[in-house]
């Protein structure tokens, strides 16, 4: 039988898959950002679980840092979405291909 933190790692894995799916296959940038949040949360769950398994507290500290990075990412990402929406009146990822080689 799996212990609780080990189960946490498995849930983290499943959440990560769902998040990845959202990021890769939704065309709306807002949904892609939500997918990124799911990915980050999955990672956080893994950190906290690992912290419990190893009996150290580092995982929780890193989880806090991830949260801070997520805040930055959300701020910048959403600002970019607003700016893009102003320029293109669209939040479709496929409409943004100026970087095509």
């Amino acid at each position: 039988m799996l212990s609780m933190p080990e189960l946490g790692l498995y849930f983290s894995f499943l959440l990560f898959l769902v998040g990845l799916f959202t990021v890769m296959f939704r065309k709306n940038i807002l949904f892609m950002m939500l997918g990124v949040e799911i990915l980050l949360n999955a990672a956080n769950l893994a950190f906290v679980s690992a912290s419990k398994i190893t009996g150290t507290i580092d995982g929780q500290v890193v989880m806090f840092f991830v949260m801070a990075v997520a805040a930055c990412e959300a701020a910048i990402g959403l600002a970019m979405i607003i700016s893009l929406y102003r320029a293109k009146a669209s939040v479709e990822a496929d409409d943004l291909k100026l970087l095509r080689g």
Partner: protein
Amino acid sequence: MNHELFLAIIVGLPLLGAIVNGFFLRKAPRGVITAFATAMIAIPFVLSLLVVTGPVASGNAVSTVLFNWISLQLAGGGVFDVPFAFSVDRLSGTLLLIITGVGSLIHIYAGEYMHHEEGVYRFFAYLNLFVFSMLCLVLGSNMLVTFLGWEGVGVCSYLLIGYWYSDEANAAAGMKAFIANRVGDLGFLVAMFLAVVLFGTLDYTEIARQVGGLSPEWFTQNQLLVTAMGLCLLLGVTGKSAQLPLYVWLPDAMAGPTPVSALIHAATMVTSGIYLMTRMSFLLVHSDTVMLTIATVGGVTALFAATIGLVQNDIKKVLAYSTVSQLGFMVLACGVGAFQYGVAHLMTHAFFKALLFLGAGSVIHAMHHEQDIRKMGGLIKHLPITGWTFVIGTLAIIGFPGLSGFFSKDEILYYAWSGPFGHPAFWALGALAAACTSFYMVRLTVLTFFGTSRVDAHTAEHLHENPLAMTAPLMILAVLATVGGYVSVPHALGHLFGHDGDNLITQWLAPVLAQAKITMDAAHPGHGSAALEWGLMGTSTLIMLLMSGFAISLYLRKGPEGGASLARAAGGLYTLVLDKWRIDELYQTVIIVPLKKLGDVFFGAGDRAVIEGVVNEGPRGVYLVTTVLSDIQTGLLRNYLKAIFLGLLVLGAWIIW
């Protein structure tokens, strides 16, 4: 007094003048520019007088090392040093005085002559830079410093010939001078390499010391290299001193302002070849081949250029060919072993040819840039000072007894016959050239200053003598052209001037030429005599008088038409000489056109095929690769995400297994 410091100042001031004029006085008033530039030459002249009359006259060379230029540790354990050093002995002292003295006069003159020109600061910056280079050339204590000056005067010559560069012909003349000089410079370079190979040093004193200590067997063994070095030096001389076959640039160089022609293309730069040969005399005399080649080149050039001068109608062109011819005399003097008379003629020529050029410049300035002597005549009424000083210059160059050219040229002719390497044939070449000289110079003077005026009415109204700043140098030079020859009074006339032995120039240069003299005396004792000297002197004076009289009789009454019947009689020969023997055309056909063809071949096979091929095909390959790579960059976010995802999988797999 610190003469070493003086030496550095003498060389440094013209450089300072060039820098200040070129960079900081662009907007300054003309008077400031002129005065500053002149001061930068005049102060060195005064210092030169102190140095030359002081320690140099009493027999001590003054030298100073500014810094160590090149220092190499040789593989064999030796050291190869080339210091940036200057030294003055009696030879370089003589040239030092000529350069700074005549240079100062010409600077004063040029200030007035260039009065109406734009960008005078540029002119004087170049002129000062030229004097600096010339001083490096003359004062350098080793061949490399001389070479620095040698190249420097070439550059300045190029810059000044093309001074009015907006006219394409002037720019082309500058380039022609530069390229012809480069050919000669190659000779000098190879000579330097050979000096390093043979002696392991470039220092004149050190080479001389080594040569003095070498056995005749050494010279027999290394005859080839010594001869090669001498011939390479001669190639350098033919380039810089405008001798056959590289003289072609000098007549075209007249495109520059007249003061430039006077300073660079008459008095100083073109004589640097004579200086170099005299400097290296101790080595040259070890090879008969070299000496005979030098004498032949000089003699033939003297006659050849003089014939072209006979028929030219441009006042400066006549003087240009005359310069080539007179330089031929100097080279001839060196070739027959009479180096001191080469230097003597260099000095007198610097006086009278600078005088003639400045006189011509004065005429041109008064005539509003008219240079054709067919449109002159009778100018002596309007330009008395210019005219009479010009007459003095003419008398000096044709060797009228008592004036400077008489002494220096007659000594050369005498030694051409009787010198250590002399031969009557050389004398014949020289005498013929002197005959031509008398004719064309008298023709020039008569057509310009005497006879009836052919000046058009408009110009005639404005015709008046130039200001003192231009005539004063003429008068000073006229005095020098008159008395300058007394340093080389012929032996036979020596008792008239109170010295029975060697004349002044021989005594003065004896220390410099001592080594060459020992070598020559051992191998080729001279075969002169007082009777021969008197005879040759009389002959050449007679020739001079005859030819001058002939020219006067032809041209005084009838003007330029006077020579017409003679020209008709000569027929095709006249046209050929008028076309300067078509030497330029010959070079065009034999050298330039084949070179261009060769260039076309390289352009087609090398540049087009290889270089452009690489340049064009290389990018095409890169383009193909990048097309594939850029296709991957779709700009679609999800494609990048897929790539990230795949990378994540690979990383995960790598960590777990």
